[in-house]
């Protein structure tokens, strides 16, 4: 409704500059407010906390995962892999259409459409377009492992404990 470029109608010539200035000031104020308000609403809409399952969680101590273990945490949709003293967290969400892949002897297999992955999550068959994601795994100061699903890392990057 508001048109910031609104100019003064004809009037006394000496007033024209003053009118113009005031119009520009109002325009500046309102346009600026509109921009800030729009930005603020964007920030407002973006949740700063989530109400579902947290994306960053502790999974216990490294000792809980013996060398050679491949333990899928189904509720968290992540598989903890331990190879010697190297640990990694691999997503168990199929990259095809989001089913939960099962841990198989050769790696991972999706029950929905038959995608297959190797032990590092690379696609070996089926319709899956990409390899499974690797999530950042860190050792928290209290000695527990923390998976951060917001933070994908390149495949093959292990945490040494």
């Amino acid at each position: 409704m508001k048109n910031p470029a609104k100019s003064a109608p004809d009037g006394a010539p000496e007033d024209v500059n003053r009118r113009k200035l005031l119009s520009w000031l109002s325009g500046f104020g309102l346009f600026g407010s509109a921009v800030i308000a729009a930005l603020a609403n964007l920030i407002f809409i973006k949740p700063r906390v989530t109400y579902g399952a947290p994306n960053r969680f502790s999974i216990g101590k490294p000792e809980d995962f013996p060398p050679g273990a491949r333990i899928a945490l189904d509720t968290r949709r992540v598989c903890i892999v331990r190879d010697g003293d190297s640990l990694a967290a691999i997503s168990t969400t199929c990259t095809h259409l989001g089913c939960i892949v099962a841990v198989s002897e050769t790696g991972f297999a999706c029950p929905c459409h038959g995608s297959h992955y190797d032990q590092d999550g690379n696609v070996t068959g089926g319709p899956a377009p990409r390899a499974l994601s690797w999530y950042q795994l860190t050792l928290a100061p209290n000695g527990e492992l923390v998976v951060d699903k917001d933070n994908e890392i390149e495949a093959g990057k292990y945490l040494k404990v």
Partner: protein
Amino acid sequence: MSTQTVTRSRDGWLALPGNIWRSVFRNPLPDSDLGRASTSFTNFFLHIHPVKVSRHSLKATYTFGLGLMSAFLFLILTVTGVLLMFYYVPSTTQAYDRMLDLRGTVAFGIFLRNMHRWSAHAMVAVVFLHMCRVFLTGAYKPPREFNWVLGVLLLLVTFFMSFTGYLLPWDQLAFWAITVGTSIAGYAPFVGKDVRFLLLGDSTVGQEALLRFYVLHVAVLPIVLTMLATIHFWRIRKDGGLARPPEEDALPGESSTPGPMEVVSAAPVVMATSAGAAAAAKPLLERKQYGIQGLVRGPITKVGNISDRSKFSWPSLFQAELLVFVITVAAILVVSLFFNAPLEEPVNAMHPPNPAKAPWYFLGLQEMVSYSAFWGGVGIPTIEVLILLLVPYLDRKQVGVGRWFAKERLLPNTLFITFAVLNVVLMVIGTFFRGANWEFVSPW
């Protein structure tokens, strides 16, 4: 219709931005009266306004922009309300937690809630003041009777909007205010208990009531209010703009005491392309072409460049409206910056606060209820609303229209002021002078 509205098309990529701009805004900034006129009616947002508007209607001290202000407050409420809906959950277990989140976690959450809360209070107050303005200037006289009725309905819907919103935070204040408020409704004869049951969906305020109030608050009532308000605005145009004294419509050279308004307004000024009839009436209007927009019921249709007591809506009216908008927004923003919306203890259905008070605009009712449950809660309010609805049909004399506190209207004005002041006094007593056990206390 006019040469200005014809789009001057140009070819080439360089002209593209200009062409797009012109396709949206058909008129360049007007520099002639014709341009000002077409700016008004070629813009979707502006076309509900007349091209020219009486100087009397533009006077700030005549309307104080109250009607417009309530419309803008509703706009603010809609915007902030929709935003708040993103985080609100109408569930007894979550509603209060979401309030805490709005306050603590969500960016700008508390500010938006403040804006919504204070705008809601302001809207109730401004709508009431708007009604006072219309009454005290005699603006409900024919042909505007029905618009007054619409206004009264809008007032009621506003109350109800505010009331339903009151429950949503699900804190002690909300819970007990609604408990008290709906109990007042329960005193209505024959239907009271059923109305209360329908409203609450249960015998007490609980999850069902919260859901029902939520649906009423965010869907049903806003739609009803929008429709009523739209008709309200439309009627302003169709009833010939804002009410004003007849001499405001007198044309130059015409006697300053024209015939009774009803005569003029009773017969719509239908004007055809033939100038014959008009020419017979007014030599000045000779050889004028009238467009279809001339088919408007009202004392006079503003066409042509007759020097009368009116101004072009662009820019005078739009500037004034914009000012009302910006002032309203500024006031709400400043209040929201300094005062936080209340959030009391989470609901505890076992421990009512003492005193348990309804929202402030119902405290007049609650005060009356403390004397007589039926008369205070149902009888007197019903009579008040009925009288308000009937006023324009009872008081039809065309005197004192468009002037504040007209001498000719001493009796109705006095009655109305008494009515308004009485209600406000009861509200003030209920708000500030009632303490524990509804006993009289001094606020000092």
